[in-house]
């Protein structure tokens, strides 16, 4: 296990280094680069631009700039926002709770609903329910999240008036119930795609397990079908689901960005879009790094958890 842990950690560090190069390259090789926001200011002269460029260190070679940026990143100095001069890391960390609240709720819905649908579909393979679930999942995967958000707002906020159309709480009423009320619609919207993916994955994993020898053995020794499915097949089919949790993080984060935008949810995704609008480079780069690090951590944790749960993985 120790060997597996170390090699997996080393892998993640290599990826982290590559991720930082990509994040840096995306913004510094883009036309205009970080300087473009100042170039747009009316009356800006060439000399002033050159001065700003020097102040910001943009006139040095890219590798030097990259090294400066990374070494500061490592000690927690992520720079200051161009917009309000607040420290970038603090701004992003301040937005994370709202994003996590949304993502965790959506993932909980996805796990409960998706796994139930997947198991039922596998147990009753070829049934009407199974076919409907298959088609339904495919359609759910093809619906643009933002459009589904608009439909939900139209139906449940504008027409029926059951749910608020956006934001995380009502000003002046910050009770738990109020938060919950605001959470329902965005969480459902974000969960849609995840429910579809989890149900497909669970169905596949369940079918894989059902065809294995130990399931036949369990049936042969006279266990009821229910016991075979729940105690033997289901428990083993859950193993690949741990990995799915890690794999799904990029989709979930991307979905959160769109959902937050539609529901004016004060999370990291909306911060990202706002910062793009202001060409706030330090924040944009910071969020790119935070989201990639979250994805890396997620897949690392998923791998370690599945290794802990399944000795076969550790031996590879």
């Amino acid at each position, binding site marked *: 296990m120790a060997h597996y842990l170390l090699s997996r950690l080393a892998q993640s560090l290599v990826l982290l280094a590559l991720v930082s190069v*990509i994040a840096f390259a*995306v913004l510094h090789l883009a036309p205009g680069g970080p300087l473009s926001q100042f170039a747009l200011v009316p009356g800006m002269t060439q000399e002033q631009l050159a001065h700003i460029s020097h102040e910001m260190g943009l006139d040095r070679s890219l590798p030097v700039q990259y090294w400066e940026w990374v070494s500061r990143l490592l000690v927690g100095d992520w720079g200051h926002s161009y917009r309000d001069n607040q420290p970038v890391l603090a701004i992003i960390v301040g937005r994370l709770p709202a994003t996590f609240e949304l993502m965790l709720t959506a993932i909980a819905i996805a796990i409960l609903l998706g796994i139930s649908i997947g198991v039922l579909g596998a147990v009753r393979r070829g049934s009407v329910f199974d076919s409907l679930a298959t088609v339904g999942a*495919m359609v759910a995967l093809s619906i*643009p999240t933002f459009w589904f958000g*608009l439909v939900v*707002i139209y139906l449940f906020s504008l027409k029926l008036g059951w749910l608020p159309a956006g934001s995380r709480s009502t000003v002046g009423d910050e009770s738990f119930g109020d938060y919950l009320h605001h959470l329902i619609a965005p969480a459902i919207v974000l969960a849609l795609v995840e429910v579809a993916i989890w149900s497909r994955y669970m169905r596949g994993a369940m079918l894989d397990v059902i065809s294995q020898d130990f399931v036949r053995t369990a049936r042969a020794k006279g266990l009821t079908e229910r016991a075979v499915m729940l105690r033997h097949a289901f428990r083993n089919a859950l193993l690949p689901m741990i990995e799915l949790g890690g794999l799904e993080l990029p989709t979930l984060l991307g979905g959160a960005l769109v959902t937050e935008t539609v529901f004016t949810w004060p999370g990291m995704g909306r911060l990202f879009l706002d910062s793009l609008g202001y060409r706030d480079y330090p924040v944009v780069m910071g969020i790119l790094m935070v989201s990639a690090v979250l*994805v890396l951590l997620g897949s690392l944790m998923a791998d370690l958890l599945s290794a802990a749960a399944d000795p076969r993985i550790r031996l590879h």
Partner: protein
Amino acid sequence: MSSTVALPSRMEGSQPKRASRGGRAWARFRRRGLAMFGLFAIAFLALAVLIGPALIPFDQLHIDIRNRFQPPPLAGHLFGTDQLGRDLLVRLLMAGRISLTIGFMAMAVSTIIGALVGVTAGYFGGLVGSVLMRIVDAVLCFPSIFLLLALAAFIRPNIITITLIIAATSWMEVARVVQSQIRALRHRDFILAAEMMGASNAHVMLRELLPNAAGPIIVAATLTIARAILMEAYVSFLGYGIQAPAASWGNMLNNAQQYLGSAPWLAIFPGLTITLAVVSFNFVGDGLRDALDARMDLV
């Protein structure tokens, strides 16, 4: 491999000659109702965006203030009109030209990038292979919508640039698929034979290896079209994609958002169209996956 299975029937002489591989794949594809639905829907959409605008007596940019916000299907506007009195159906079809074009072009570019990266990584293996595949892993660490927006925000958006940045964030899946295929084929006899006959690396990679990975590439490419259409919609919806007055399915929804309460049809039709297009390509891709699975030839 398939010859050993076909042998007994040939000896009996009772069964007619087996169909070609393509023929058998098509036969399997045709049996899948959803895949056929997808194929017809795509053909319908393509035809509609090609010839539809010519059949509608309105121009996509024709502003008619007296007929603003006409709900469908009033005043000759089948899908209603928008906030400037423009016909929604004709805009939807013109937008479809842009969105579908971007979908196909982004698929082509990302499939080429992905196939080249995958075949290089799979053929050379070793350091080159692992560096390339680690880069693939690293790009996949970024949620693609974040990367896409970061790129889109700093360029002048038009069909070409949007296509390129969607391709830049969509090639990794193809690269992975191709690399694993190539690695499996790398040490087969026909490759060794080609190498012994003095074929160049490029010849072996492009003429011997890649064609044998065609099935999975076609499947991945089809699913990439679905993804690219969706991505265009996301970027344009968020304001960094195709810009007004040109219409794309995504920016029509961006515009519809503010009139959601009073003119819901402005949001409903573009959303349904995107969903139809994306689900159709997904159905076709799924059908192709089963149809092109070489193992099925043995059954």
